[in-house]
């Protein structure tokens, strides 16, 4: 009797938890559904979708880690498999969302993430150089490169000197 009561209560707890999760999910799902309708003229589509964004982002991060001017700031962030994967996926989501793709960025805001880091203009410029090198490597046309940099450019004020 006692065991069955516990089992029933446990099942109820599980059911409530799922219900709560699903209720919260409805809100997110609606947003995701809106995001998932990709405009064929969006930068996301013109860049080549998630596969192309993944290729460029992977190369960008590899360039940054190989760049002695700034890799110290990223060393701890990519020092293990789980951290490197999280960081890479966060960046892919951010570029995907910013370019009009079906993703939602779930990382910290740029201001939150960079406060206290004292990033200099020179470091930020080095980062942009590494991104441009990755875009050039995959022969991303100049218009798409400029459109992407225009999306990322406004983040500069939240990153430099914080």
């Amino acid at each position, binding site marked *: 009797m006692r065991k069955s009561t516990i089992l029933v209560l446990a099942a109820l707890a599980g059911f409530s938890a799922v219900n709560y999760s699903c209720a919260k999910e409805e809100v997110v799902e609606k947003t995701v559904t809106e995001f998932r309708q990709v405009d064929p003229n969006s930068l996301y589509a013109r860049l080549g979708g998630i596969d192309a964004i993944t290729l460029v982002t992977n190369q960008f991060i590899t360039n940054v880690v190989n760049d002695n001017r700034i890799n110290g700031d990223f060393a*701890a962030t990519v020092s293990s498999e789980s951290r490197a994967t999280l960081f890479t996926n966060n960046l892919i989501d951010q570029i995907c969302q910013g370019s009009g793709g079906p993703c939602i960025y779930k990382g910290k805001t740029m201001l939150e993430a960079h406060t206290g880091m004292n990033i200099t203009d020179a470091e930020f410029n080095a980062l942009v150089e590494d991104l441009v090198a990755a875009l050039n490597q995959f022969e991303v046309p100049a218009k798409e490169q400029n459109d992407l940099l225009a999306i990322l450019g406004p983040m500069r004020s939240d990153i430099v000197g914080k």
Partner: protein
Amino acid sequence: MKAIYWVLGFVGAAFIALFIYANVRQVNPSASLKSVELLRFSTKDKIDPLVAERAIEKLRGISSIATIAVNPKTGWVTVMSHPEDISADYVEKLVNDELGVRFTRHDLSANTAGSGPKCPAVGPLSYAELILNKLNLRNS
């Protein structure tokens, strides 16, 4: 004894709830990407730029290697690989063989260059996301 049943019941129920949630929620396309690892190598020997170019082409053709960056000036090489498909030791062997010089692998977390605290963009929510993705059968 009774308390143990209660705890086990709730832990079990919470896990089941988490598992179901992980499998029914909408996820970003990046959630289904393979995990990555960054490996950094250096050499004091001279890297021939032409050999480096050929090595980059060859290594990029290997599916378990995502990307590679070689800087012949500084002698640094960084490889992003998929650790479930290839070991770090084998990547090191490939880099040594293809570039024709002896490289030393570096622990990335030991690098202290840079102007301030390390990039903290990955927060606790990102780890929760990672756990949910691991529980998602659609990713397997």
